């Protein structure tokens, strides 16, 4: 099977959709000739033209609202938000308009739009260009939230997001753009709300998102050498969350580490951990649930500090080992 990068998978999902559905278009800053800050839309303006690959001024609130208004009237916009940190400027349109319109209007009207946006640290871009703020949008009824970790997932989930009749926030991790996996050429859809067991195991469950899926898998390989059998679950979509898959796994292993790149305090890991603690899996827990997330500081510039800010493979390994020691 063909291998392409995560970045190419995202582009392919958009392009294939745009070829068959004229209502789908992209808008955002520098997505045209520039090809987007990370090159995701590179070449697309050449194929689809400047109307459908629409360069915008630097006006995050305005373009988000324009996307909402166009979705409400029959288009299916994909908003390319250059860095996910800039959602701070578009929050009103996403949260107070897109998420609530259908409910406020008593079920009339719909807002089929996707906000695609790169998140995460590791590029040295410091505090205002490296955040993982997905927890904010998970808290808002009316939104769906997707966080793919592989090229394969990215393509299938993006198709599902575009096909969805609701506003979907689609987080792409910058450090994953260059990673590759097998990706079918034909279109396919991965249902929103379906977790993926990225590795089966029996001793400990790691629930990991985005880049942490890869770090968890690496940690699992290391731990396997010491006879520790780790299961890695990737929720893939945070809202809706596949609670069943997580509960099933934790009920089997009795131990769970939840790991994400976002700041630990108030991160979505808290929701996942609490959900587990409230569920029937509680009775199977033989050790306290453990969360790993970023340290309580803004993202620092210096590369070593930047690394230390977020969970790395050794941190995951250590967390698992401590958990096993205890039980």
């Amino acid at each position: 099977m063909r291998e392409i990068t995560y970045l190419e998978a995202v582009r392919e999902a958009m392009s294939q959709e745009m070829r068959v559905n004229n209502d789908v278009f992209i808008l955002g800053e520098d997505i045209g000739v520039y090809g987007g800050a990370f090159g995701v839309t590179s070449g697309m303006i050449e194929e689809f033209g400047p109307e459908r690959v629409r360069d915008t001024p630097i006006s995050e609130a305005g373009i988000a609202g324009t996307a909402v208004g166009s979705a409400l009237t029959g288009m299916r916009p994909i908003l390319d938000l250059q860095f996910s940190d800039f959602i701070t400027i578009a929050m009103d349109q996403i949260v107070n308009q897109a998420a609530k319109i259908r409910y406020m209007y008593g079920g009339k009207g719909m807002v089929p739009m996707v906000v695609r946006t790169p998140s995460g640290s590791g590029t040295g871009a410091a505090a205002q260009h490296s955040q993982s703020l997905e927890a904010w949008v998970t808290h808002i009824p009316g939104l769906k939230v997707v966080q793919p970790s592989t090229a394969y997932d990215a393509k299938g989930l993006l198709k599902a997001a575009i096909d969805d009749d609701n506003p979907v926030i689609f987080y792409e991790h910058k450090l994953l753009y260059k990673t590759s996996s097998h990706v079918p050429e034909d279109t396919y859809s991965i249902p929103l709300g379906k977790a993926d067991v990225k590795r089966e195991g029996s001793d400990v469950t790691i629930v990991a998102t985005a880049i942490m899926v890869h770090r968890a898998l690496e940690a699992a390989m290391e731990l396997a050498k010491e006879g520790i059998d780790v299961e890695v679950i990737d929720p893939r979509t945070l809202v809706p969350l596949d609670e069943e898959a997580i509960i099933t796994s934790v009920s089997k292993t009795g131990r769970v580490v939840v790991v994400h790149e976002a700041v630990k305090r108030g991160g979505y890991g808290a929701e996942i951990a609490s959900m587990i603690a409230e569920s029937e899996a509680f009775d199977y827990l033989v050790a306290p649930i453990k969360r790993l997330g970023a340290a309580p500081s803004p993202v620092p510039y210096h590369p070593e500090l930047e690394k230390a800010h977020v969970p790395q493979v050794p941190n995951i390994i250590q967390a698992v080992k401590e958990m096993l020691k205890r039980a």
Partner: protein
Amino acid sequence: MDRLIVPDKITDNKLINLYKQMWVIRFFEEKVDEYFAKGMIHGTTHLAIGQEASAAGVCALLDVEDKITSTHRGHGHCIAKGATADKMMAELFGRTTGYCKGKGGSMHIADVDMGNLGANGIVAGGIPLAVGSALTAHMKKLNYVTVCFFGDGATNEGSFHEAVNLASIWKLPVIFVCENNQYGMSSPVKEMVNVDNLATRAQAYGIPGVVADGNDMIEMMNVTDEAIKRARRGEGPTFIEAKTYRWKGHSKSDTKKYRTLEEEKEWMRKDPIKRFKNDLMKAGFLTKEKAEKLQEEAKKVIEDAVKFADESPMPTLDDLLTDVYA
């Protein structure tokens, strides 16, 4: 007898209907005011009594396919865009027959199918939505225009700025109608901006900015007609500043300390309905009797609406979690 110069689109019959419509709007709001005072309606409300000419005058030029976005002060816009008073009243009463099944209330009345993309509780929140709607028209090569209503205070929000700029550079078919009623809640527009006319702001985007007497139906129809034609010709947006006044307080709980009674009285003398009536009478479209009859009919519409609303069912708790997702 004076000749009324109005857009071609405005037939004689339409003129008469518009007169009645203004009364429907006025009576609707007076009734809402009364019921709020009595505690019979929940939440909060913002009345546009005194501003009927901008709602009715602008929407008079719109076809069903055309769209509007509205504000927290949107009852008039809704009715003028074709909403029926009964379903509006039912919404304020929180009934399932209301435009939003009782889930939205006064600040969120919408009728997407009829081209009303919604009132909005966020000041300036609807402006980018209007631009998005206009973008749809542009991209799908549909001929509709979108009218975006907002207040003077809204022009100080960043989303106003961003959205108008977008509409301008993309030459979208949208008409920005700023109802300058002199105050944003308690803040006099004179203290909140440093220009005499908000229409001046259009210059920052390279689009026409027109100052209009917002209490003059005839003028409102004519400037709107011009702007719509421009939009349909593909020449882009127009900014219309309608100078007007809200007679009532900002919302139900306003002691109006920030303005004088004299000022209020002065503006009440400029009642847009009375003015339109005089214009119609002078031009021979209306007799005193006919005017009274229309006014009575309007009153009846509201009475029926109240009855409809009052007899409509309440939502049940099962409705809480429906309509969140499509």
